[in-house]
């Protein structure tokens, strides 16, 4: 891998990167003129992004591009961006495959292209203003995808998303202005010395976009109302747009990095408790996303791989659950699912729970390995790995609620055909183990002795099953407050912002 810090100038390499970033937008124009070309064009964008992700991982292209002079646009096509690019390409591919034979609403494919373009830019952008513009492109295309169909609930959910997203992005701009006033540039490198308030405003906006903690509370209702394909895109693609800059800031500014670790733990716990008490499948998946995004923030170096494993599995789960009859978990208990739905459902949820040999297992092990290093901050060395272990038991318990043994009866014969998109994503969860993204991790794991890791994983799954059995169920189960009104969301974001200002402003 090429060193990250070297700013290299390679005209042909930078031309290639810029052309790849522009491709989705040009393709969207072309698809608007010739609608028949939309699907091949999306495939082309997916293929080029896969190639770029590989190139970024292997260091074939200049990892750091500075365009238009020292105050200009900075793009980083580095190993941090690579797994996120891979994830968004695969999820877009799966969504395209899912709707291949269907008669989709006309602008859907066009918006898919715009969203791809926005997400790519957001993942590689590495100065405050490019990040801002890319976030807004992603926000607008997600809003338009959410309001497809024009029904009142969809309009309301889309409006909420855009209103909150834009309000926090205004605060982000204010933070960017403060950084510029102090440092004289919008580069991320200056964040280490910039004031706590500026950093807090930037973090608040990105936490909201990355679906973390109280600022991510918009997610459950959004996933419950949005069509499955859009939910899959939100948890597999849109989230990367918020995560990438967040991880970059965590690396650039040490104070932000250690604070994000605490917020990540809080988010993991919050999402877990609400997921355990949730009664509807789509909302359970959303709460679990909030929890898992917290885990991604714990160690930026492993965050990309963790987000990749989670995003693939979560998008697959949304696509499969769309084909299952009931959205209510009470209704699930009395039903059997045919193999074609039960198998991807089991594999994807087992991956998030951390069962070998799926990609999620490797991601969890890598995270554990990274955390067992030297102690961080005030915590004793073993406290953080122990907390993560407990949270993993909770995650297994959440997904144990979805596990049903497949069977065949009269009802399953009439169930809809299997979901091609979910099959693609589940296959990726298995096959990516042999890809350059995972091979190195497996090698370290095998060198250290894999037996202990396997035992730990089995123990985690069993403990999770046990916790799921013990958790109070039925009408008198755990009742949690409803925190998802528009005012709660705005209040939650302001609360997180105020806490960040207090903690970073010292």
């Amino acid at each position, binding site marked *: 891998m090429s060193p990250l810090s070297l700013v290299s100038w390679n005209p042909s390499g930078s031309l290639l990167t810029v052309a790849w970033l522009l491709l989705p937008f040009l393709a969207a124009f072309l698809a608007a003129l010739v609608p028949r070309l939309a699907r091949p064009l999306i495939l082309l964008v997916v293929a080029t992004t896969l190639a770029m992700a590989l190139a970024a991982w292997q260091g074939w292209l200049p990892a750091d591009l500075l365009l238009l002079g020292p105050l200009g646009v900075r793009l980083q096509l580095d190993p941090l961006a690579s797994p996120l690019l891979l994830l968004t390409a695969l999820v877009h591919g799966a969504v395209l495959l899912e709707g291949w034979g269907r008669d989709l609403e006309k602008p859907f494919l066009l918006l898919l292209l715009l969203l791809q373009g926005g997400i790519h830019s957001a993942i590689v952008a590495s100065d405050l203003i490019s990040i801002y513009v890319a976030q807004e492109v992603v926000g607008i295309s997600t809003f338009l995808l959410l309001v497809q169909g024009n029904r009142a609930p969809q309009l309301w959910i889309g*409006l909420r998303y855009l209103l909150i997203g834009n309000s926090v992005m205004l605060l982000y*701009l204010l933070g960017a202005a403060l950084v510029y006033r102090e440092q004289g540039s919008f580069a991320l490198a200056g964040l280490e010395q910039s004031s706590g308030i500026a950093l807090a405003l930037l973090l608040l906006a990105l936490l909201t976009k990355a679906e973390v903690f109280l600022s991510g509370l918009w997610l459950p209702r959004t996933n419950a109302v949005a069509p499955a394909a859009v939910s899959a895109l939100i948890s597999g693609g849109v989230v990367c747009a918020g995560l990438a800059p967040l991880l970059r800031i965590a690396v650039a500014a040490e104070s932000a990095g250690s604070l994000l670790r605490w917020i990540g733990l809080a988010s993991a716990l919050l999402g877990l408790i609400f997921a355990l008490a949730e009664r509807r499948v789509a909302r359970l998946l959303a709460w679990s996303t909030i929890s898992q995004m917290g885990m991604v923030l714990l160690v930026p170096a492993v965050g990309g791989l963790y987000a990749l494993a989670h995003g693939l599995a979560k998008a697959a789960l949304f696509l499969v659950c769309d084909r299952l009859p009931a959205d209510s978990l009470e209704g699930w208990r009395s039903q059997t699912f045919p193999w074609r739905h039960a198998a991807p459902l089991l594999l994807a949820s087992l991956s998030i729970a951390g069962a070998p040999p799926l990609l999620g297992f490797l991601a969890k092990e890598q995270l554990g390995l990274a955390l067992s290093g030297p102690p961080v901050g005030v915590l004793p060395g073993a406290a953080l790995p122990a907390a993560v272990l407990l949270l993993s038991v909770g995650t297994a318990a959440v997904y144990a609620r979805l596990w049903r043994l497949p069977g065949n009866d009269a009802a399953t014969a009439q169930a809809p055909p299997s979901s091609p998109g979910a099959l693609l994503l589940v296959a990726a969860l298995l096959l990516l183990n042999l890809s350059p993204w995972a091979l190195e991790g497996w090698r370290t794991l095998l060198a250290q002795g894999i037996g202990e890791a396997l035992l730990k994983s089995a123990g985690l799954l069993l403990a999770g099953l046990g916790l799921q059995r013990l958790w109070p169920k039925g009408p008198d189960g755990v009742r949690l407050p409803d925190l998802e009104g528009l005012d709660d969301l705005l209040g939650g974001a302001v609360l997180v912002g105020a806490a960040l200002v207090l903690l970073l402003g010292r």
Partner: protein
Amino acid sequence: MAIIDAIDGFVVMEALMLLTVFTGLVGLLLRRNLFLKVMGMDVMGTGVISFFVLVAARSGFRTPILDGNVAFPGGNDWADPIPQAVILTAVVIGLSIQALLLVAITRLASVDPSLDAGQLDQLGRD
């Protein structure tokens, strides 16, 4: 040196602009009417944009366009073109987002003409 004399003015202006952002945020939080919430967001945007213009004016007031050696009444110190260019993008993005929000609000008005956020929140619940 007009600029050095004006430093105190900068601090006052800065405080006023941050106050504008804060006022917008309070409106966004406290108003129940959806339309007024969006207006609150717009007030926030106005504050942020003026803040950028102020940051740009720290080095001088002269518009950073090369036009020969024409004397400029406010002194010949250039304003910083970078924040100005940046905020131009943000103005356009803010405008288009507001347009989208208002379209969505117009459609939602047929569900609840009072545009009460609490009432509309029932839409997303199952």
